Structures are given as C-alpha cells and as structure tokens.
C-alpha cells in the first residue's frame, strides 16, 4: 500500500478483514512482525505512537476516544502539545512567552473548531456533545497536531444520511485546506464511493482489489467477499 501526497484513499473490507489492524500498525499501536512502514521515506515501524504522531501522522478512532473530562476546546488544545516550544520551567513560572504561546494555541484551536462548526460549544464538556459532533471533534483534534497524513477510522459510523453527506464535504474540504493525505476506513459505501479517489479492498488481511471506485464496484472478487460466493 502506498499513498501519494494529497491522496484520498479508501480502505474497505468485510467485518474482521483487518482494517483497524492496519491503522494500528501504521500509527504504532501494534508493532509489525515483518515488513516496513515509511513516512516521507523514513521507516516508522516499531516507534511509539506519540513519536509517529510528532512526525505528522494523526488519526481518529472507530469507537470515539475523546478526552471526556475536558472541554471541546481543551481537547483540541491538547493536540497542540506536539508543537509547543515552552518548557516546564515556563509553565511553572507562567512566563510571558508561555502566556503568548497559550494564547496562540487557544486562538488556532478556536479557528479549527469554527471550521467544524463547534466553536459555539467550545467551552462545553466534550462528553456532552451529540454523537455526530463528537465525531467531528475527533477529526478536529487530530488536525490540531498539524498532520501530513490523517487516518480516519469509520468517521461516518452512526451518522444519519444527511450527516454523512456533510461529513464527505468536510473531509474533502480539509484535504484541500490543510493539504492532507487521507486514509479512510469506512463501512458506509456511499461515503467511500463518494469521497475516495482510490480504494483498496482487503479481506482476511489480504488485498483482493485496488482501483477507482467504479472499478471496485464492478469487481467480482469484492462482490464475493461482501455477499458470499454464488
């Protein structure tokens, strides 16, 4: 599997195909037994997830994992930790440069929330948001690390059709605005077919098809994997 800058790449497959496992391998949650994973030509397999995140890879989770006791804004601010310059001494003394940096983090956090239509609820607890908004907040939080590659694990899960359509536009908008490369896992075929330019289908850990949405839709092997052999 190989992604070029600016790709919007879909990864699909039946339940248990190993999609989330692929995500966990790429982001460092699991260490691969063999093979290599590279980001900008640098091998990243076996490194800690936090180190990989610092290199410009960010993700969302299939089952929402927001920081529940924090406000919406704080969730986004937490990700900015990756780029902070002030040390612990500045934090303890609350130096002027720290206050300036905190102000910047806050400002860019609010701007990001605005894009996702969450700025009005910035000071509410993240756990009090409706489900769809929590999904969007997860994407906003991931973007706050200023990634080059964004991995979305079933971003449309549990959304109603209208929310899913809005999400598609949002994903495309983010890709263009932040010049992202996006890898998407999704069960909602409307979203995958609507937004991805290239799709890879896996089943039991093996790639069974790779191509444009149209090619995938007509591929007999894919139909077999999803619907069962005739």
């Amino acid at each position, binding site marked *: 599997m190989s992604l070029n800058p600016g790709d919007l790449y879909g990864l699909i497959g039946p339940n248990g195909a190993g999609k989330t496992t692929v995500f966990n391998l790429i*982001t460092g*949650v699991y260490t691969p037994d063999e093979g290599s994973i590279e980001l900008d030509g640098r091998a990243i397999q076996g490194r*800690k*997830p*936090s*180190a990989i*995140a*610092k290199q410009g890879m*960010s*993700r969302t*989770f299939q089952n929402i*994992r*927001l*920081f*529940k*006791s*924090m406000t919406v804004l*704080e969730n986004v*601010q*937490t*990700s*900015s*930790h*990756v780029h*902070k310059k*002030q040390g*612990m001494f500045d*934090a*303890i*003394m*609350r130096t002027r440069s*720290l206050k300036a940096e*905190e102000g910047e*983090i806050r400002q860019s956090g609010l701007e990001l929330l605005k894009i996702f239509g969450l700025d009005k609820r910035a000071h509410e607890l993240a756990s009090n948001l409706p489900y769809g908004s929590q999904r969007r907040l997860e994407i906003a*939080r*991931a973007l*706050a*690390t200023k990634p080059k590659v964004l991995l979305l694990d079933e971003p449309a899960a549990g959304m109603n059709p209208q929310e899913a359509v809005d999400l598609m536009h949002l994903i495309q908008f983010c890709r263009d605005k932040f010049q992202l490369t996006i890898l998407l896992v999704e069960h909602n075929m409307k979203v995958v077919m609507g937004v991805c330019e290239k799709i890879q289908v896996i089943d039991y850990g093996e790639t069974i098809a790779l191509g444009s949405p149209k090619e995938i839709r007509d591929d007999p092997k894919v139909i077999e994997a999803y619907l069962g052999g005739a």
Partner: protein
Amino acid sequence: MKKAIFWVVALAVLALLQAGLEGTIGAYYYQIVIYVGINIILAVSLNLINGTTGQFSIGHAGFYAVGAYTSASLLYYGQSMLRGWLSFLPHAAQDVVLLLIGLSAAALAAGFAGLLVGIPSLRLRGDYLAIVTLGFGEIIRVLILNINAVGAARGFLGIPEFSNFFWVYLFALITVVVVYNLVNSSYGRAFISIRDDEIAAEAMGVDTTRFKVLSFVISSMFAGIAGGLFAHFTAFLSPNTFQFTTSFYLIIMIVVGGMGSIEGAILGAILITVILEVFREFGAFRFVNFAVLLVLIMLYRPQGIVGNWSVFKRRGAF
C-alpha cells in the same frame, strides 16, 4: 509585576503570622496548624499523580519518609561542617541556608526514588503502580527500622529545628502555585489526557510514559519537601509516622476533597487533619469516622466536596 506583588504580600503575611501565631493560639493549636500545612503539601502533590494524571499511587508516605530522613540525617551529621563553610553568614541566616539545603536534598532524594519506582511501573497500563508503590512504602519503612545511624526503631532524635509556620506555609504556597500552573498549561492537558484516554493521548503525540513519570517525580519531590519540613519541625522522626496508614489518610484527603481538584486536596487536608486531632482521645476508634465519611461522600457527593469547581479555573495562579 503582579507576581512580585503577590509574593511580597504573601511573604509579609507569613512573616507576620509567624511572629504572632504561636503566642496567640498556644503550642498545641500551633502544632496542628503546622500539620495541616504539611498535609496540604502532601495532598496537593499526591493529587497531581492520582487525581490529575489518573495513576493510582498508594505509597506517598514512602517518599515523605525518604525526604524526612534524607534532610534530617544530612543536617544532623553535616551541620557543623556546613556551618563551617557558611561562617561568613550570621547564625540566623545560616539556619535558613541549612534548611534550604536540607529541603533541596529531600526533594532530590524523593524525586530520584520516584524515578526509580516510576520508570518500570509506569511503562505499563493498569494497577501496577498501586502495587509497586505500596511495596515501596513498606520497603522504605523497614529499611529505616534497620538503619542504626538514623535511630532505627528507637526513632531519630536531635534533628536540628529549623522549620516553622513561615517555612511550612511558604512551601505549601509554592506547591499549590507550581501544581496550579502546571495543571493549567499544556503539561496539565497532557496529564489529564492520559487520565481520560491513554491510547488517544498517545495518538495525539503525548508521550504517555514520559508524562506519567514526570507527574510522578514532581509529586514525589513535593512529598520529600514535606518530609524535610516535618523532620525539622518535630526534631524527632519515628518510622511509625510513615506507615502505610499515612498514605491512606492522604488518599482519603483527596477523595473527600475531590479527585483532581487542588482546592479539594487543600480542603481534604484541613478536614482530615482536624478530624484526626478532634477525635484523638478515641484512639483507634477514630478511624471509624473515615469509614462513615467515605460512605457518605460516595452516596451523596461521589465527585468529592469540591468536585470540579476551581477558583482559578483554566487560568493559572501567580
């Protein structure tokens, strides 16, 4: 500028109280006030690791002991030598420098102990820290019981008396300000993100092991300082002070006050210290109070008395 004014006023108030307090309220109440101050340092520091970072440490008394015995033995055995080096200073100034040396050594020793305990146990998720810290606290106590140079089971007598209301409350204030500012910075957000969801924190670029160890070491260092202040106030140390019941009192303080809340930890420290004193004549029966108190808290206010409320919410103190 605001910071400077804050500290000048704080120092003046502390010095004024130091001058008048003991004479006004008497030695007994003065001693309780001191214990309240020491417990505030302990509870607020324990709250950083248990409440804010969400790791369960039940061996805070161990770090308290390390600090107390380090500072006590350093100044007991090294006093005359250090005074020799400091002979250019007046005697009262020497006392201050000696106390600060002792407390620095206490903080370093306790922090180092925290690092040793934290690195292996905080790399893992789950309850390992609780198990290891419980063991650590007991190991320290048993070690002290067997070291003759620090009085073993007889207790450590003749520790120089340097600390008083002024120093205890100055360090209580420093502890509160440092923890406050830390919690209300990107460090605090990293700590809280670990408590809320470790996997997500790691994916957002928070090196969870490093931040857990950091939080734990800072917490241990303040416990060490509290130990030093205690040793140089009572001038006598007994291993019994550092039994694991002490760790449990500290946990009760932060649970009653409200996990993760600095005001809660302060309130809990005051409340529990006072309850322990008020019911002193009941001996072991006074522990029943805590059982009742905890049951009531769990039934009627599980988030603790203070809960999530905070004076300086999201801003940071001076």
